[in-house]
């Protein structure tokens, strides 16, 4: 193919292509480049240098095409990262490109070819998309906050009643105590004064609890997720709704399963879901007077085979009318009277729950009433999908999956914090050996970090069960106690790569994990 034929072919391409000499003088531009960079044949004839065409955006400083030097030096094609440049003619209009450069050598006549891949539109759209998503998230956060305030507004009457009772008691006791202390208390009265002060203190502490629960509920939600014991979270909400429940003569009974119910969620947001569902049930019950009394049951259960967690709010109210069932998750749809409901509670619940990979739906309660069921994925799946997604957004590296087994959510949170700071690590927490075993192969786990003693099965037994498996992850065992006897049991287990005596520092943990990846054993 002659040079002319080659250049004619280049003219058919949509991508700008420049050909330069070794000293960066432009000798050819294809049609797309002439169009894009406003290079006329006249300019080309007059001896055009790359530095005459391209500058750093907003400046007169010429853009340095290091990629050409690299291509010449290595004689290999070179690809640049994303570069940002402008034309000398219009320094305020900038472009984003990825460049590919290669050198074509023939008889001492090196030609350097630069292909431009224009990313300007893609980059601008990406930035706009990111900004709009941010605005939507901010808007959504404001709606959630507004919903909380509306809920608090509705609760104000019962709360003020609940606060005024202990306040009256405290004030009365202090008055009595003051009277007894004036001018000098008799010894026989000291016991009464002490009791008055204690009662006043207790009443003030009740008010303190109410306000603390309120503060927890109103706390502006962050995106951060953590391992949370849903039973504790549910008890907080039951306590916060106490005044509302009593005022509406409703019996709210927790029915929690014996197993650990730990979720990987944002506690502030899930508090709001629980609050909305229970308040809806209270509102529904206010319309009726069932023979057996107004009842709400709060269930927390775990599906042992799939690992799903279930939160159920069961009431014996009137149920959801058939015509409303399709619309209950539509924003601003409400069956309540004007001023009594925003129509945002259930849509917000749905949005929060789905953001955690869960589902929410209503069912009829057998015997009458409504049951709202919220399903969350098991913590292992939840943490993996969340952390892996986060990693993918930051890096093109394959994540190293570290499964941590511990039955205490606080410990998982601390370890998640330490391990999560390593950009290439994907933290997967688990509270149960049975669930952990299921996901080791599913997610191709690299390292298992487990306590020697965990409920139901020991970490050593777990490592043993994988010891003959060529695909076994590396095990690192932890313990806070004396472990001499246990340590003997791990001799000969090739898949045990380390031991950590608690408490340990973050740097020791990370060193042990990295060493395990290299195949070493630390203790």
């Amino acid at each position, binding site marked *: 193919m002659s040079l002319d034929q080659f250049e004619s072919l280049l*003219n058919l391409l*949509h991508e700008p292509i420049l050909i330069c000499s070794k000293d960066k003088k432009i000798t050819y531009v294809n*049609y*797309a480049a*002439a*169009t894009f960079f406003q290079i*006329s*044949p*006249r300019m080309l004839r007059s001896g055009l240098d790359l530095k005459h065409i391209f500058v750093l955006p907003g400046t007169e400083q010429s853009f340095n095409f290091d990629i050409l030097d690299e291509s010449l030096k290595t004689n290999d094609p070179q690809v640049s990262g994303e570069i940002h440049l402008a034309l000398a003619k219009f320094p305020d*209009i900038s472009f984003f490109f990825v460049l590919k450069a290669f050198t074509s050598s023939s008889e001492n006549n090196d030609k350097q070819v630069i292909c431009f891949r224009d990313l*300007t*539109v893609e980059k*601008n*759209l990406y930035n*706009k998309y990111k900004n709009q998503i941010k605005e939507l998230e901010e808007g959504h956060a404001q709606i959630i906050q507004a919903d909380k305030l509306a809920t608090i507004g509705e609760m104000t009457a019962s709360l003020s009643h609940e606060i005024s009772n202990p306040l009256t008691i405290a004030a009365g006791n202090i008055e009595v105590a003051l009277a007894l202390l004036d001018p000098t208390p008799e010894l026989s009265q000291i016991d009464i004064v002490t009791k008055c002060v204690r009662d006043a203190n207790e009443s003030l502490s009740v008010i303190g609890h109410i306000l603390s629960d309120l503060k927890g509920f109103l706390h502006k939600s962050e995106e951060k997720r953590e391992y949370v014991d849903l039973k504790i979270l549910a008890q907080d909400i039951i306590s916060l709704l106490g005044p509302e429940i009593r005022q509406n003569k409703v019996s709210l009974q927790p029915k929690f399963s014996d197993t650990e119910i730990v979720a990987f969620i944002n506690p502030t947001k899930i508090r709001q879901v629980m609050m909305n569902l229970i308040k809806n049930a209270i509102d529904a019950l206010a319309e009726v007077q069932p023979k057996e009394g107004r009842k709400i049951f709060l269930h927390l259960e775990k599906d042992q085979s799939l690992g799903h967690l279930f939160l159920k709010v069961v009431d014996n109210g009137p149920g959801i009318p058939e015509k409303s069932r399709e619309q209950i998750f539509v924003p601003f749809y409400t069956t309540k009277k004007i001023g009594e409901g925003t129509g945002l509670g259930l849509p917000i619940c749905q949005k929060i729950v789905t953001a955690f990979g869960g589902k929410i739906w209503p069912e009829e309660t057998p015997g009458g009433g409504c049951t709202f069921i919220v399903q969350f994925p098991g913590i292992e799946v939840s943490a993996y999908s969340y952390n892996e997604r986060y990693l993918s957004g930051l890096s093109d590296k394959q994540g190293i999956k570290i499964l941590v087994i511990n039955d205490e959510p606080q410990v998982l949170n601390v370890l998640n914090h330490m391990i999560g700071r390593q950009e290439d690590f994907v933290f997967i927490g688990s509270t149960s050996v049975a669930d952990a075993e299921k996901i080791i192969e599913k997610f191709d786990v690299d390292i298992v970090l487990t306590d020697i003693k965990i409920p139901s099965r020991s970490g050593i037994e777990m490592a043993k069960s994988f010891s003959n498996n060529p695909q076994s992850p590396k095990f690192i065992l932890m313990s806070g106690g004396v472990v001499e006897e246990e340590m003997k049991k791990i001799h000969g287990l090739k898949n045990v790569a380390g031991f950590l005596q608690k408490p340990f520092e973050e740097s020791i943990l990370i060193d042990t994990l990295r060493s395990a990846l290299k195949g070493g054993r630390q203790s």
Partner: protein
Amino acid sequence: MAGNFQVKSQIEGKKINAELSGAINEDASLEQIPSGFEQYVFDFNNVNLINSCGIRDWIGLLDRLGSNVKITYKRCPQIIIEQINMVKGFIRPNTSIENFYAPYFDPEPDQEIKVLIKTSDIQNGKAPAMKNGKGEPLEFDAIEDQYFFFLKNK
């Protein structure tokens, strides 16, 4: 950055004259150009940018207006002509270009000039001869085969 896209329309019976200005990009709302007229005259004189999103939307607009309407482009700047040359679908059988800007170079003050020329002035794919105020000839500042490519496809 290029300004917001605007359309100034003037209706003459079944004909609409639309003066376009600003950037034809992802933010440009081409919905403001109504369908239902028999003839459309688009004046591109004040269009300062068109990108791939804008081209996609423009082609969508032509699809919406239909093949039975008569469309005329006038005062097309160089950026529009270059896109017309590179993108299929910008010119349809029912579309004509009345006039457009072509790049010329005046060697005396060393100046690039955009000259408005009529499509009918292009004969045999050659740029019409132009002179500056002093009567000296201007040099056509592009490759004729490439710049007038759209006339071959017409």
